[in-house]
């Protein structure tokens, strides 16, 4: 049953994926391209690369993006031709990847709120705060790569400038980060499409 396999795979991705964004990528690849995915899924390494590329060009976490996309494509590959089967696949995969962490996070969050004044929770959180700062910094460092900054001298220069200016705006002005994203997209459009 292709739907059960899909649900099982995305339950695993949801429950064993830590760290957000591209940290989950190898887990997803493992499930849908290699051992996890049965041959009837018809997901090639190329399709997987496509999904990653699309995820970089659309909003939202890659975990959700891949669940929605794989859920739509796989039933058709397995012979369930109507788009409604695809829609059903999209919904069940997205729910499968979201639901277990949703429950886990809710319980943890409730537990911590209830015991917020206990010594254990206060102590643990005080130790976690500097770690989380380090985690955010590591995410920033890991993303400063050629995928995000380009490879040619022109791309690198434009990217470093865009990153620097965006940082200064977000940090030192009241301009909304969403406006910064839209502005950077517009600069990208001008530099790489209109002038080149």
């Amino acid at each position: 049953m292709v739907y059960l396999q899909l649900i099982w795979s995305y339950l695993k991705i949801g429950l064993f994926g830590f760290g957000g964004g591209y940290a989950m990528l190898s887990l997803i690849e493992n499930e849908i391209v290699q051992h996890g995915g049965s041959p009837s899924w018809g997901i090639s390494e190329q399709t997987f690369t496509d999904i990653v590329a699309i995820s970089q060009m659309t909003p939202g976490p890659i975990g959700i993006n891949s669940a929605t996309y794989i859920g739509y494509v796989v039933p058709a590959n397995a012979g369930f031709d109507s788009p409604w089967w695809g829609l059903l696949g999209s919904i069940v995969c997205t729910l499968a990847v979201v639901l277990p962490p949703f429950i886990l996070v809710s319980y943890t969050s409730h537990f911590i709120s209830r015991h917020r004044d206990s010594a254990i929770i206060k102590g643990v959180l005080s130790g976690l705060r500097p770690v989380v700062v380090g985690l955010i910094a590591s995410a920033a460092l890991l993303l400063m790569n050629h995928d995000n900054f380009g490879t040619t001298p022109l791309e690198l220069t434009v990217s470093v400038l865009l990153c620097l200016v965006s940082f200064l705006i977000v940090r030192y002005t009241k301009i909304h980060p969403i406006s910064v994203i839209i502005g950077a997209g517009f600069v990208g459009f001008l530099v790489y499409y209109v002038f080149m």
Partner: protein
Amino acid sequence: MNIYLRLFFTFLKIGAFTFGGGWAMISIIEKEIVDKHHWLDRKDFLDLLAVAQAVPGILAVNISVVVGDRLRGMKGSFAAAMGTILPSFIIILAIAIFLTPELIKNNEVISAIFKGIRPAVVALIVAPVLSSAKAAGINWRTVIIPVAVALLIFSGLPVVSNPIIYIILGGIVGYIVFTRRAASKQTIN
């Protein structure tokens, strides 16, 4: 407007402009939840981030669940999570139904726009490093912790580049330091 609807629409906006996963959301969430709506202060938000990171799952969804839960319990977390998921779900579904991946990948306008957006997204992750360091009360003595954590994860070396280690260590060390301090305070009194 009803608080659940406000939560939903706030996170819908956040979800629609989050490129590159949970870490890139932090700046936008800080702006919306901390600065604009004053639903949380920075330190609370940092504690919630710690919880979101410590539990498995998609970071962006976890963050919306912990924030929604803190503000309005289970219903709040449901509203926030739906807001985060829907833009991504609808856009990908539309691409899967109406377009082929090649059409998006090879579209020159879209790829030009995203060549501009990606370095800005990195900036959106660098900025909260400073604001969260301040909220965490990092000083010249404790700055070694985030620096070491960031560099070890960045190193890509086996074992030490796994973030889970530092969450577990941070929790244990934090607990020990906190109870010791409490104990020494008691003996002084």
